C-alpha cells in the first residue's frame, strides 16, 4: 500500500454518464409531482402593493399560487442566501411585501403540468411602488463601507515603494461574472419514508437541509438533503437558493411533491455571481528586479444585505518574497442581487491584477517575466514568516517554460508573426490557492462477496471526487472499482460538509484512506496474521464473516473533535492556509500563446501549457481535465465573459447563454497539462493539496500578458474585446 503516483484510470462514474443514466436532481422519478414556476420582480427596489391572481388562477391545471402572504412565517436565518453564516445578513424573498433586487421571486405558481405553471406565472399581475436605487458601485447612491474588510501588512511598504528604483502604479478592473453551470438549479421536495426529502444539486447537503429546517421551524431530523449528481457547481450551489425554501414550503402546504427548475434568465438574478471589483496595484523593485514593496487596494461590489466578504488581498503577498507589503480590501454596497463564491472567488481577480502588474514590472526592469518570478521566489510567507508546507512554483515555471518553448518569446511586442500574418504573443502568469481540509464521518463496509460500500462527506459536481475516493480504496484495499458503491452528497448516508474551496480531495482522500487502513487493521485482528496479497474479500470470507464495517472520524490538521459535532449540524469548519507550523498552498504556472488577426482584432488562444503543484495527483486523467477546465474559465474571463448590469433598471441585460458568452469548442486550442506530483504529507496522510481552483488562478493574466506581447497594448479591464485592439 504505497501511494501510487499519477494513477490514470477512467472516471468511476463515466459509464453511467455516457449512457445518460446518471440522475441529477431534476431527473428523479417521483409519483404525483407538481410543477412550479416563479414570477420574477420587474423592479429593483420597492414594495409590492397588490398582486392580481385572477387570470392566473383561471389557467387550467394551476393548483395554487403562493405569494408573500403564504410565506411570512419563513425565517431569515444565517443560512439564508447571502448571509454566509452571519446573523442579520442575508435575505429570503417572498417573506414580506418588499423587493430588494430585480428578478427576485414575488410569486410561485404550482400546477399539474409544467406548461400550465409557465402560463400561470405569465398571467400573474403585480403592482409595485418603486423606490430609488443604485445598481453600480460607481453610482452616487452606492455606499462604501467605512472600514476595510481585511488588511495585511508587513514592514513599511509606503517608504519602500517611494524609494524603489522601478515603480508600477496601475489599476485593473474586473467585471461581474456568472457561473452558468449547464445544470439549471432545480429544487424538488417530496415525501418519502415519513421524511421530507429535498433534491437539489447542491454542494452542501447538510447545511442545506439543516438551514432549510431552521428557516421553516422544522425538526432537522425530518428533513433529508439529497444532492445526487451535480451538473457543475463552481460555487453557485454552495448554499441555500432563493427558491429552495419556497418549494419546500409549497410541498408541505399542498401535501404533494413539487419540482421547480429555475429558468436561466431568472437564475442570473437569484443565484450568486462574481461581483465587480477594482484593483490598484503598486509594485516597487530594485535594479535587479528584487521586489521591495507591494501595495494593493481593492474594492468589491456587494448587495445591501450580503455577508460575502472581500478577500482579494489574501494570496498576492504569498506569491513572492516581498520586502514589505500593505493591502486593504473594501466593500461597496448597491441594490442588486447578492454575490458569492465563484471558482477562485478572490484568487482569480487578484491574480489577474497582480500578475499583469508583474508583467508590467518585468518590462520596466527589463527582465524576462519568468526570470523575474523565479528571482523573487519565496520559501517563507512574507506576512506571517512561516514556511510553506511545500512550494514548487519555480519548478512549475521552469518545466512550463521548457514544454512551451518560452525561449522563442521576444521582449519586443509584435515581433513574432505567424505564416498567415497573425501576430503571435506569449505570456506567463502564476497562481496559488490555499490548501484546505474539512472533517468527515466515514463508514466503510467490505462484503465477503467483494462488494465495498463507502458513505462519506462529499459532493460530485464533475471534479471527480468519486474517482478520488475510489483511488484510495483501490490503493489500500485493492478492491474492484466495479464493485464499489460510493454514497456521498446525501445526509441520509453521512453528514455532508460543503464541498468547495478546493478542499474536496484533501478531505475525501484522507477520509477514505484512513477508513481503508482501519479496515485492514480490523481484518488483521480477525485473521490473526498479516494480510497476504490475495484479494482482501477472500481473506475476509475465510474468517466466516459476511461483512466487516468500520467507522472513522477524520479531523483535519489543527482542529479538534468539536468539528465532528459541527459537521453533523451542517456548520462549515475549514482549515488553511495558515496552520500552526506552516502555510499551505497549491501553486501553478500558466503559459499562453495567442494569435491576433491584425485587421479584425480577433484573438485566438492557440495553446496553453499549465504546470501545477497540487501535492500528490490522485488520478492523472481527471486531474488533467480539471486543469483544462480551469484554464478554459481563465480564457473565458480574459476574452468573453461579463454580466452587463443596466444602471437604469438594475438587472443583468445579457441574462442568457447567447448574450453571456462562455467559451465554446471552437474557442479552445491545445491545453497541455503537467504536474510536479510531489506529495505533501505535512498536510494530510494522502499527500494532497487541492486543484480545482488553482487551475484557474493566473490563467487570465497569462492570456492578457500574451495579448500585450502580441500588440504592445496594456488593456486593464476584462474581457478584452475586438474594439480594444483595433
Amino acid at each position, binding site marked *: 500500500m504505497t501511494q501510487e503516483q499519477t494513477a490514470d484510470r477512467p472516471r468511476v462514474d463515466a459509464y453511467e454518464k455516457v449512457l*445518460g443514466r446518471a440522475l441529477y436532481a431534476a431527473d428523479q422519478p417521483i409519483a404525483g409531482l407538481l410543477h412550479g414556476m416563479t414570477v420574477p420582480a420587474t423592479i429593483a427596489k420597492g414594495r409590492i402593493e397588490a398582486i392580481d391572481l385572477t387570470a392566473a388562477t383561471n389557467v387550467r391545471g394551476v393548483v395554487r399560487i403562493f405569494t408573500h*402572504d403564504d410565506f411570512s412565517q419563513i425565517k431569515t436565518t444565517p443560512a439564508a442566501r447571502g448571509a454566509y453564516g452571519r446573523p442579520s445578513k442575508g435575505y429570503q424573498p417572498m417573506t414580506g411585501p418588499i423587493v430588494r433586487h430585480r428578478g427576485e421571486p414575488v410569486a410561485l405558481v404550482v*400546477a399539474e403540468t409544467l406548461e400550465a405553471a409557465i*402560463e400561470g406565472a405569465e398571467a400573474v399581475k403585480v403592482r409595485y411602488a418603486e423606490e430609488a436605487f443604485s445598481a453600480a458601485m460607481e453610482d452616487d447612491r452606492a455606499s462604501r463601507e467605512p472600514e476595510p474588510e481585511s488588511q495585511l501588512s508587513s514592514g513599511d511598504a509606503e517608504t519602500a515603494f517611494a524609494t524603489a528604483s522601478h515603480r508600477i502604479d496601475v489599476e485593473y478592473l474586473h467585471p461581474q461574472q456568472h457561473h452558468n453551470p449547464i445544470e439549471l438549479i432545480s429544487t424538488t421536495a417530496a415525501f418519502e419514508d415519513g421524511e421530507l426529502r429535498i433534491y437539489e444539486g447542491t454542494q452542501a447537503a447538510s447545511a442545506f437541509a439543516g438551514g432549510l429546517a431552521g428557516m421553516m421551524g422544522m425538526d432537522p431530523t425530518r428533513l433529508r438533503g439529497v444532492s445526487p449528481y451535480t*451538473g457543475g457547481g463552481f460555487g453557485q450551489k454552495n448554499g441555500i437558493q432563493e427558491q429552495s425554501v419556497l418549494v419546500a414550503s409549497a410541498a408541505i402546504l399542498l401535501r404533494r411533491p413539487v419540482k421547480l427548475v429555475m429558468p436561466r434568465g431568472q437564475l442570473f438574478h437569484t443565484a450568486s455571481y462574481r461581483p465587480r471589483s477594482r484593483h490598484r496595484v503598486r509594485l516597487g523593485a530594485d535594479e535587479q528586479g528584487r521586489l521591495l514593496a507591494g501595495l494593493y487596494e481593492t474594492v468589491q461590489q456587494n448587495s445591501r444585505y450580503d455577508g460575502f466578504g472581500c478577500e482579494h488581498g489574501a494570496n498576492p503577498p504569498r506569491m513572492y518574497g516581498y520586502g514589505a507589503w500593505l493591502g486593504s480590501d473594501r466593500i461597496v454596497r448597491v441594490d442588486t442581487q447578492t454575490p458569492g463564491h465563484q471558482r477562485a472567488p478572490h484568487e482569480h481577480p487578484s491574480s489577474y491584477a497582480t500578475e499583469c502588474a508583474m508583467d508590467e514590472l518585468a518590462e520596466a526592469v527589463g527582465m524576462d517575466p519568468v526570470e523575474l518570478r523565479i528571482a523573487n521566489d519565496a520559501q517563507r510567507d512574507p506576512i506571517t514568516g512561516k514556511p510553506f508546507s511545500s512550494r514548487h512554483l519555480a519548478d512549475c515555471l521552469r518545466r512550463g517554460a521548457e514544454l512551451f518553448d518560452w525561449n522563442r518569446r521576444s521582449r519586443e511586442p509584435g515581433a513574432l508573426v505567424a505564416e498567415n500574418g497573425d501576430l503571435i504573443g506569449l505570456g506567463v502568469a502564476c497562481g496559488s490557492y490555499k490548501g484546505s481540509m474539512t472533517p468527515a464521518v466515514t463508514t466503510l463496509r467490505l462484503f465477503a462477496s467483494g462488494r465495498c460500500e463507502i458513505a462519506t462527506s462529499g459532493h460530485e459536481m464533475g471534479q471527480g471526487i468519486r474517482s478520488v475516493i475510489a483511488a484510495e480504496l483501490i490503493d489500500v484495499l485493492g478492491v474492484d472499482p466495479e464493485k464499489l458503491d460510493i454514497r456521498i452528497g446525501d445526509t441520509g448516508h453521512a453528514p455532508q460538509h460543503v464541498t468547495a474551496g478546493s478542499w474536496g480531495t484533501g478531505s475525501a482522500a484522507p477520509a477514505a484512506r484512513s477508513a481503508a487502513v482501519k479496515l485492514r487493521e480490523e481484518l488483521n485482528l480477525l485473521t490473526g496474521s498479516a494480510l497476504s496479497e490475495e484479494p482482501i474479500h477472500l481473506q475476509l470470507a475465510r474468517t466466516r464473516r459476511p461483512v466487516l464495517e468500520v467507522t472513522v472520524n477524520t479531523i483535519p490538521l489543527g482542529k479538534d473533535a468539536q468539528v465532528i459535532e459541527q459537521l453533523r449540524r451542517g456548520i462549515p469548519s475549514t482549515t488553511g492556509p495558515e496552520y500552526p507550523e506552516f502555510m499551505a498552498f497549491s501553486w501553478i504556472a500558466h503559459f499562453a500563446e495567442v494569435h491576433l488577426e491584425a485587421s479584425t482584432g480577433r484573438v485566438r488562444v492557440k495553446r496553453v501549457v499549465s504546470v501545477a503543484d497540487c501535492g500528490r495527483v490522485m488520478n492523472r486523467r481527471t486531474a488533467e481535465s480539471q486543469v483544462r477546465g480551469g484554464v478554459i474559465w481563465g480564457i473565458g474571463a480574459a476574452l468573453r465573459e461579463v454580466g452587463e448590469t443596466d444602471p437604469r433598471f438594475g438587472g443583468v441585460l445579457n441574462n442568457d447563454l447567447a448574450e453571456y458568452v462562455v467559451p465554446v469548442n471552437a*474557442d479552445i486550442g491545445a491545453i497541455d497539462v503537467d504536474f510536479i506530483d510531489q506529495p505533501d504529507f505535512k498536510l494530510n496522510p494522502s499527500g494532497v493539496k487541492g486543484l480545482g481552483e488553482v487551475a484557474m488562478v493566473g490563467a487570465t493574466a497569462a492570456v492578457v500578458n500574451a495579448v500585450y506581447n502580441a500588440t504592445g497594448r496594456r488593456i486593464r479591464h476584462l474581457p478584452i474585446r475586438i474594439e480594444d485592439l483595433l
Partner: protein
Amino acid sequence: MSDPHDRQFLEITRRQVLEAGTIVAVSGMLPVAAQAQASSSQLAPENGVTVQVRFQINGQPSVLEIDARASLLDMLRERLGLVGAKKGCDHGQCGACTVHIDGRRVASCLTLAAKIDGRDVTTIEGVGSADTLHPMQQAFIDHDALQCGYCTPGQIMAAIACVKEGHASTPEEIREYMSGNICRCGAYVGIVAAIEQAAPQIERG
C-alpha cells in the same frame, strides 16, 4: 392573497398544528403529506389543448396525447421519463437537450412535441447499451470527455451526428461543428479527441 381556498387551507394547517402541539405548521404536517403523496396518481392529466402524436421513440412505436404547448424536451422528460436529454437553457443555446429526429440532430427544447408526429426520435437512452457501448460513448470515457456529465448526453448525440454529417475530418472542423454544445466544465479537448477516435469506427460501421 384573496383566494378563499387559500384562507381555508391556511386555517386547516393552523388547526392541525395546534392539534399536533408543534410550534410551526410544517413539522406536524409531514405524515399527512406523505400519505397524500403515496395515494396520488403516476401521471398528471394534460390540461391544455391536446394533440395526439404517433412516433417512434428509440425504435418503439408510440402514441401519446400531449399538451400542444409542450416542447419535445419536456415531453421526453416529464411524460416519458426519458431524462437523459437535459435542460440547460430551454432556448436552443446550450445543446444539452440534443436528440436525433430521423437521424438529424435537433435541440429538443426548441422543437414542439406536436411536430414529431410520424417521425423517428432517438435519445441517449437509445444509443448503446450496458453491455455494448456505442463507439462514441467508449471514446468519451477513454478521453475523459466529461466532468459533471450534464452536457454529455447532448454532446454524444451531437458528436454522432457530426460524424454522420461528414463534419469530423479534422480537429478544426470538429471544433466548429461541435460549438453548439456548451460544456461549462470545459471538456472540449477530450471531446475533440473522442470524436477523432470514434469517427473512423462509426464510418466503417
